[in-house]
């Protein structure tokens, strides 16, 4: 392979199996979490600080959102930034640690065994460390640093902080009685002493504030930051447009980072400066909205496909959720049933609405392409291959979006009214929407396992497909 004037043409497309295994794990965790909500609507209808809501939240956030987001980044970052992934081997180890960590954490949160949460959380953290190292090394090879790379680097930083904060919170909820019985030279003693010191230090702060800070570092710092950064690349790519104002995009990213640092700190310290920090976040999001609008207005492809509409609906929800969060952060706001339930609505709409709808829409872009690339790219020019749109049903996509959105909004209403009945109804509709999504996903994966080819006009039926076990049917 030759070398071009503006950079090497030697980069290899990354393996499709690494991102897809994360995606499969993620899309299996999602209906499990939704089913949990059907069975236990009190998860949203009652006050949220209980072991079951914490377990279900981690199943949703780490099991679904985290799996898909991190898997997608292994594929997306090298392609979007024109480089290659540092190590696929590390990514495969990350997957194992991630699965063990998430499954164990959710199980132990449900049992409220915080010591074991810490152990499984450490496995998850080791996986995240591999992920951050792998992508950090990948980012170092990016030929042209830009706003997308900056946003991804920031999201990685916030992810690391979120995980550390989560581990510290778990450590703070454990007792260290065994220290008294351990002999002075025992190898575990230094680690236990460090954990005890962490617990003592964190015990000085308001536990609710610490947990809110942890949630915002992850929800906003990792997921919203990632959505913002990646959309600066993908939105122009899918609408055939351009980033309209790189300075505005950079300012949006900068304000989100600055504001989040303030929000995290003021939540942690229970400081009255929270509304000011929140305003900086809102300003960053407003600039982001302006840039998205400008990209869409200047696009060459007039028709917005349904996968993009998932994303735009998610952004519409963000325009509601972000101001709601700002209001709920007002100092001295009384903790009534209404305000605490609105906190639940805020968290639910942020994660199940804004981030999940974006991820679901994104999956309709990434999975068909990955499957198509795996099964058909090598056959182009040799056989007639299906188009990307032939891999799934658009009618199911539209139906799924309608059901998921209705379900999410219904469950939010139920949470606001503290009504288990309405939450359960919303969760059932959501589950139906996810079922539709899974059926469509199954259609895509059918092409992964059993590609279907047709011979090109004039070519022999006896031609062999390259690299896949495909069925060749006459046209």
């Amino acid at each position, binding site marked *: *392979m030759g*070398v*071009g*004037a503006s950079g090497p043409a030697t980069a290899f497309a990354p393996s499709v199996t690494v991102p897809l295994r994360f995606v499969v794990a993620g899309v299996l965790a999602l209906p499990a979490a939704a089913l949990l909500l059907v069975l236990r609507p009190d998860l949203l209808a009652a006050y949220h600080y209980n072991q079951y809501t914490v377990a279900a939240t981690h199943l949703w956030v780490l099991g679904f959102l985290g799996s898909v987001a991190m898997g997608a980044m292994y594929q997306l970052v090298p*392609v979007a930034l024109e480089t290659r992934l540092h190590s696929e081997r590390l990514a495969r180890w990350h997957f194992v640690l991630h699965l063990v960590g998430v499954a164990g954490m959710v199980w132990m949160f449900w049992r409220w065994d915080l010591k074991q949460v810490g152990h499984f959380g450490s496995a998850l953290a080791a996986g995240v460390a591999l992920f951050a190292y792998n992508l950090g090394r990948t980012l170092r090879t990016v030929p042209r640093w830009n706003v997308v790379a900056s946003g991804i680097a920031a999201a990685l930083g916030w992810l690391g902080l979120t995980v550390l904060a989560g581990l510290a919170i778990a450590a703070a909820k454990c007792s260290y009685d065994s220290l008294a019985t351990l002999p002075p030279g025992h190898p575990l003693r230094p680690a236990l002493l460090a954990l005890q010191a962490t617990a003592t230090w964190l015990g000085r702060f308001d536990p609710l504030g610490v947990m809110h800070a942890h949630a915002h570092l992850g929800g906003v710092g990792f997921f919203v930051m990632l959505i913002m950064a990646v959309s600066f690349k993908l939105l122009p790519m899918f609408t055939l447009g351009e980033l309209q104002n790189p300075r505005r995009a950079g300012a949006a990213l900068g304000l989100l980072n600055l504001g989040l640092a303030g929000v995290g700190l003021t939540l942690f310290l229970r400081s009255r400066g929270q509304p000011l920090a929140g305003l900086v976040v809102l300003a960053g999001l407003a600039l982001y909205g302006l840039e998205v609008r400008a990209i869409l207005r200047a696009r060459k*492809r007039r028709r917005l496909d349904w996968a993009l509409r998932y994303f735009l609906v998610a952004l519409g929800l963000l325009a509601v959720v972000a101001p709601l969060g700002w209001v709920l952060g007002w100092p001295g706001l009384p903790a009534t049933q209404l305000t605490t339930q609105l906190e639940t609505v805020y968290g639910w709409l942020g994660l199940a609405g804004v981030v999940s709808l974006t991820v679901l829409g994104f999956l309709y872009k990434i999975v068909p392409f990955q499957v198509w690339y795996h099964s058909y790219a090598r056959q*182009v*020019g040799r056989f007639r291959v299906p188009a990307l749109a032939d891999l799934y049903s658009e009618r199911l996509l539209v139906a799924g979006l309608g059901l998921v959105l209705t379900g999410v909004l219904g469950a939010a209403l139920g949470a606001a009214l503290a009504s288990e009945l309405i939450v359960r109804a919303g969760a059932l509709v959501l589950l139906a929407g996810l079922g539709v999504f899974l059926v469509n996903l199954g259609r895509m994966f059918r092409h992964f396992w059993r590609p279907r080819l047709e011979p090109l006009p004039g070519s022999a039926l006896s031609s062999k497909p390259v690299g896949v076990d495909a069925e060749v049917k006459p046209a």
Partner: protein
Amino acid sequence: MSAETVEVDARGLEPPQPLMRILEALAGLPDGAVLRARTDRRPMHLYPLLAERGFTAETQEQSDGSFLTLIRRA
């Protein structure tokens, strides 16, 4: 004598259509000819497929932000 060139303009197309246009054009590329493919983005997914089919590629970014990839048999 300069080599025969075949032009493929795959700008304005959503993935994977640029990749399909280029690979389909390569299937009929005469010996010794060069395929000049224009794309909106650097064709990262194309390179391994070209190598597998015995082609070399050289990509240059153009002043308008698009990319020109010159493809010839190895």
